């Protein structure tokens, strides 16, 4: 097991390095400069600014400097928001995004998995059809459709909830629901599929014949194996929640990192784009690592290759 974890860890580091390199050169290939403004700047001053940020050096040299800096946890200054470092911006906004993302994941798992188990156990009854139709509808309503619709219904028509800002728990509900319900739909379908596969196994028939109560069969015998598809989906779900936050934070004016990313990419705020990409990629790589470990732990038949 330890060997497996170390191998996956090394692989994760490799992936991160590759992501960093690709991001760096993509950003460097973007036309324009982070320092161009609408006002004309004297060429000498522009040259000084560029020298200050290290932009007078060739791209390959900048790549290695920036890589060493990032490895030391030094993400550099924001090129557009003067006097703020990338670390400061992350420290300010990350807690908000973390709260939003965790709540959304909680909603996704807390609704999706029980609904999926229920649908599998009560297969072909209305307890199966209704959650599954609702989840299909959920999958077809991505965040940028669901968000405005929820805001329209609960915020503007019914006037129950605030539709913008981030000042307290009542402000959390709509963004969390928008982000979480979409993945709840996925988790429900995956859990149902996984549980059905387990419930059709021979050992379940044996257990039933021996008179084991149905709850024990479902919760003790089948749950572990039945959850594997849902757990596999955790990695993509986290990636989706991160990119979903770009949209949700814009719609509901949440002061989190997602808003920053798109703005930074459009404004060519190179250091901020790189810093955020590293952060997002690290989160996803860690999640994938945990998923891999959990999968092997749940299904010993998977060899640690």
């Amino acid at each position, binding site marked *: 097991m330890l060997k497996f974890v170390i191998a996956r860890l090394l692989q994760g580091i490799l992936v991160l390095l590759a992501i960093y390199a690709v991001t760096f050169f993509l950003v460097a290939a973007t036309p324009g400069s982070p320092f161009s403004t609408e006002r004309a700047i004297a060429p000498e001053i522009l040259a000084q600014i560029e020298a200050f940020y290290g932009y007078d050096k060739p791209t390959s040299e900048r790549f290695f400097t920036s890589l060493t800096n990032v490895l030391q946890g030094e993400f550099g200054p924001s090129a557009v928001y003067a006097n703020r470092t990338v670390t400061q911006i992350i420290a300010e906004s990350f807690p908000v995004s973390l709260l939003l993302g965790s709540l959304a994941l909680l909603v996704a798992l807390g609704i999706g998995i029980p609904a999926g188990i229920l649908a599998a156990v009560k297969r072909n009854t209305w307890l199966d059809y209704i959650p599954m139709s609702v989840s299909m*509808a959920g999958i077809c309503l*991505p965040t940028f*459709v669901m968000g405005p619709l929820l805001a*329209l219904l609960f915020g*503007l028509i019914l006037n129950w909830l605030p539709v913008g800002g981030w000042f307290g728990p009542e402000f959390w509900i709509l963004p969390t629901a928008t982000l979480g319900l979409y993945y709840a739909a996925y988790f429900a379908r995956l859990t149902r599929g996984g549980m059905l596969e387990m419930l059709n196994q021979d050992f379940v028939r044996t257990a039933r014949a021996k008179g084991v109560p149905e709850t024990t069969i479902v919760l003790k015998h089948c749950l572990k194996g039945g959850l594997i598809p849902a757990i596999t989906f955790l990695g993509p779900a986290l990636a989706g929640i991160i990119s979903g936050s770009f949209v949700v934070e814009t719609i509901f004016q949440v002061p989190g990192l997602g808003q920053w990313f798109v703005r930074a990419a459009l404004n060519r705020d190179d250091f901020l784009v790189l810093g955020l990409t590293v952060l997002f990629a690290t989160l*996803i*790589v860690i999640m994938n690592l945990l998923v891999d470990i959990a999968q092997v732990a749940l299904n010993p038949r998977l060899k640690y290759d």
Partner: protein
Amino acid sequence: MPPPISAAEIADEALVEGSSLWKDAWSRLRKNRLAVGSLFTFIFIVLFCIVGPWISPWEANTQDLFLGATGPSAQHWFGTDTLGRDLMVRVMYGGRISLLVGLVATLVALSIGVIYGATAGYVGGRTDSAMMRFVDLLYAIPFTIFVILLMVAFGRSLWLMFVAIGAVEWLSMARIVRSGVIGLKKQEFVEAAVSLGYSHRRIILRHLIPNVLGPVIVIATLTVPAVMLLEAFLSFLGLGVQPPDASWGVLINEGQQNMEIYPWLLIWPAAFFATTLFCLNFIGDGLRDALDPKSAKD
């Protein structure tokens, strides 16, 4: 233009060759009321988007600033937007672009995925495991971030979007084709082809790929909504289709900005977009059940 037609064409070709697989699949699909209903709804939406603008008296980009935003009326069935443009025609035009992106980007993903997967499966051994390891690595990468950076770096052209989205969505396609090819390549007809001295290329293209068409069609049908979703996501963020051109993503974004006063600007494009995704997903599920009756019903 609609993807299912290409599926039907392929089915016809296969029929001429005397296979009954497609016939069986078709009769199974017909019994699936949800899939058939979705197919008809989808065809209706496609025709609505293609034919609609020719019939409608309104132009998608003609503004009428004195009119402004109005609710649905006898003249403008879906209402007009803030610049006085007829929303129904804009939804039709937006649908054309969204469906076109769905189709073309899926074809890009299909070509990459099928060729990559078939090669990996056919060659086997170390090459295969290296190639599939690479796919595993790509799965772990947050692609939306890269697509966003790509669109910023190389301008927001429609063609770049086709390629960028297609390059992201080929991974599952490659996996499915590979496992299909591995199952097939030990069979006698491949051995026969090898002993006749056919080239590897010919064996892959003419003998192996046609035999994995079933699962490929299923996954392609399910890729179309995924691709359309990504396009709408980019357009919503202002990185995809650029105004005054419209896609459903652009229209949803415009509607979202004005929904407090003019909710219909959001509701119409959102309804068309969601219905299309809904239909495509059900058609894909139905095709899977029809083409591969052994696979569990979910």
